[in-house]
């Protein structure tokens, strides 16, 4: 008799991944039928290049959402844009183009801003949604003040990144670095504390978890991932753009939900977020293969909307009994 208990518990723990995995498979099959070009070496390379910023931005949202209190970070897009425009306008503009400087700046700004947000949430004790909402407005304005319109150049070494001709590209390494950070994080006690805090902050607090430090840590991790996302985004567009990055907020939140994370906290992970972001990419890629003409933008919008609704509903059906029990 084979003991199925560990297997079943693994299944139960990853129930939220069923929908994203199923959707991913369906989309892959559809992509194989509609556009076989995606599965060539250059197709995959292009896909990595285009999908990397969204994957990393979605991963950046994950720890912050997991920390609970409905703290979905609305400012992730503008923060990504802030790093993008400051890199191009300030660093490259002043001649600081070495990779070390660029990476250090991106990671530092991302992490510092997120920790600042965490401190405001903790000490000013204003609801996270309001903090990130005000960040969204603030950073969107600041980005436009730093760089009124798209332009500028990226460092010499980064221009080759945006070519997207081979699979083994620097962007892939950045993506792997992000996943590695996440992997290390899941091996720590901090990961368990984060899940506890998100699932029930009061219970975690009374059990001796230092919830404030957990929140700061979640934002720190998220901020570093935003930094990596900003580097990939900068490589992708090969310039500075004060507006475009703002759209990552809604895309990343959608991807996060598609990946099965719970916006009420406690549940989420890199696998789900990566799958969610890949699904988003595949959906827009598939839609682009249809000849919608003038409708294409609208068709993308309506499909994102419908897919978000359906995946949320399926998530609810899967987890509804537990929610009832918890109440």
């Amino acid at each position, binding site marked *: 008799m084979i003991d199925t208990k560990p297997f079943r518990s693994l299944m139960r723990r990853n129930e939220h991944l069923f929908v994203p995995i199923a959707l991913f498979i369906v989309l892959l099959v559809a992509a194989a039928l509609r556009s076989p070009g995606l599965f060539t070496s250059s197709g995959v390379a292009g896909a990595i290049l285009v999908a990397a910023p969204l994957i990393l931005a979605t991963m950046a949202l994950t720890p912050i959402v997991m920390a609970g209190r409905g703290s*979905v970070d609305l400012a992730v897009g503008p923060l990504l844009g802030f790093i993008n425009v400051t890199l191009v306008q300030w660093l490259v503009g002043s001649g600081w183009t070495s990779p070390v400087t660029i990476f250090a700046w991106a990671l530092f700004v991302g992490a510092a801003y997120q920790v600042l947000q965490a401190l405001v949430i903790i000490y000013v004790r204003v*609801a996270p949604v309001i903090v990130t909402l005000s960040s969204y407005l*603030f950073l969107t*304005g600041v980005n436009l003040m730093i760089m*009124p319109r798209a332009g500028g150049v990226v460092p010499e070494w980064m221009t080759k990144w945006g070519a997207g001709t081979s699979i083994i590209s620097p962007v892939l390494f950045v993506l792997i670095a992000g996943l590695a950070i996440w992997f290390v994080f899941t091996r720590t006690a901090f990961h368990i504390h984060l899940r506890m805090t998100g699932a029930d902050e009061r219970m975690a607090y009374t059990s001796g978890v230092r919830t404030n430090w957990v929140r700061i840590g979640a934002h720190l991790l998220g901020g570093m991932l935003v930094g990596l996302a900003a580097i990939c985004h900068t490589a992708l567009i090969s310039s500075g753009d004060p507006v475009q990055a703002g759209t990552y907020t809604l895309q990343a939140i959608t991807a996060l939900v598609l990946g099965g994370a719970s916006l009420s906290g406690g549940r989420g992970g890199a696998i789900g977020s990566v799958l969610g972001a890949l699904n988003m990419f595949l959906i827009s890629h598939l839609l682009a293969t249809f000849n919608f003409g003038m409708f294409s933008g*609208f068709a993308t919008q*309506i499909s994102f909307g419908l897919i*978000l609704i359906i995946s*949320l509903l399926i998530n609810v059906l899967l987890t509804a009994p537990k929610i009832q029990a918890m109440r």
Partner: protein
Amino acid sequence: MTSTPNTTFPRMKAPARGRMLQWIRCNRPSVIGVGLLVALVVMGSLLVPGFISVQNARSILLLAAFLGLASLGQTMVALLGGLDLSIPYVIGAANILLPSLINTGMPAGLAMAILVLAGLVVGALNGALSYKLQGQALIMSLGFGFAVVGAAQIYTTLGSAVGGNVFAPIPAWLTNIAAFNGRFFGLPIPPVIVIWIAVTVVTLFIVRNTWFGHSLYALGGSRVAASRLLISEFRTWLAVHAISGGMSAFTGVLLLGFSGGGYVAVGDPYLFTTVAAVVIGGTSLLGGGGGYGSTVIGALVLTVLTSLLVGMGMSFAAQQAVVGLLIIPMVALYARTPHIRSQI
């Protein structure tokens, strides 16, 4: 308008410490809001020449009226502890569908009525779908908004040469309702301001005097207690979302009179400004505290602040940055959550 009666009900769990003290505590957000409003007007009159003028007051009230009408649904949803992010998309959809319907030869009044009804239905559907989600309901409303605006754009683009904008001859009475130089029975007041006042009065009356109004606060305060009172959470949740959808469609329709041409992105600023008006007014996003009276103050504060910043010659980007920076201190004045120590 700042003297509108406040709707904040005494919280049921608050211990009795004398009615006066309780009144002040319960109405602190409104007291602060009115103070803020006065301070902003004084600053405006000192810093910006011509700030205190009929012209400026009229434009502030006009813009605040649109924001206030769009924020009515947001306030009610927030009272239940949710957020409706479909508002900008419903506004945009109604804004392009109205000229498109007028182009088919339908009378404008009928088309408006149909769109507001459609908004109610769409909102109710949004509420029905998001009911089970609770914590994630706002994302459901976002997805729902995407779907609605995508469908509206596809419909209006069918058989037209350009996507996005829709043009039609707009009846003069609709323009009069929403334009800067609109007149209300000969008075130089754009009628939309009068509509806003009427809507405010009716809303405050309904919230204070009906079972529905009491249900809002009961549910926001405690779901369990409300269900013991036989208040249907589902029906109330559905109703507030329907109201939100209907009011969004109504705002979108009125905005057509203001701008003159259907433009789908006209609603976009309302994604964040409706939330900002609600929280600056002092309605807690956790549910149970605040009310539409507070949101009216919030909408006015936000509009006066924007007008002040424009008057000081700030670019749109700088205005956004300043408003973003100011939201946290404004909210911190009265909407701080208690420390976790005191929540155990």
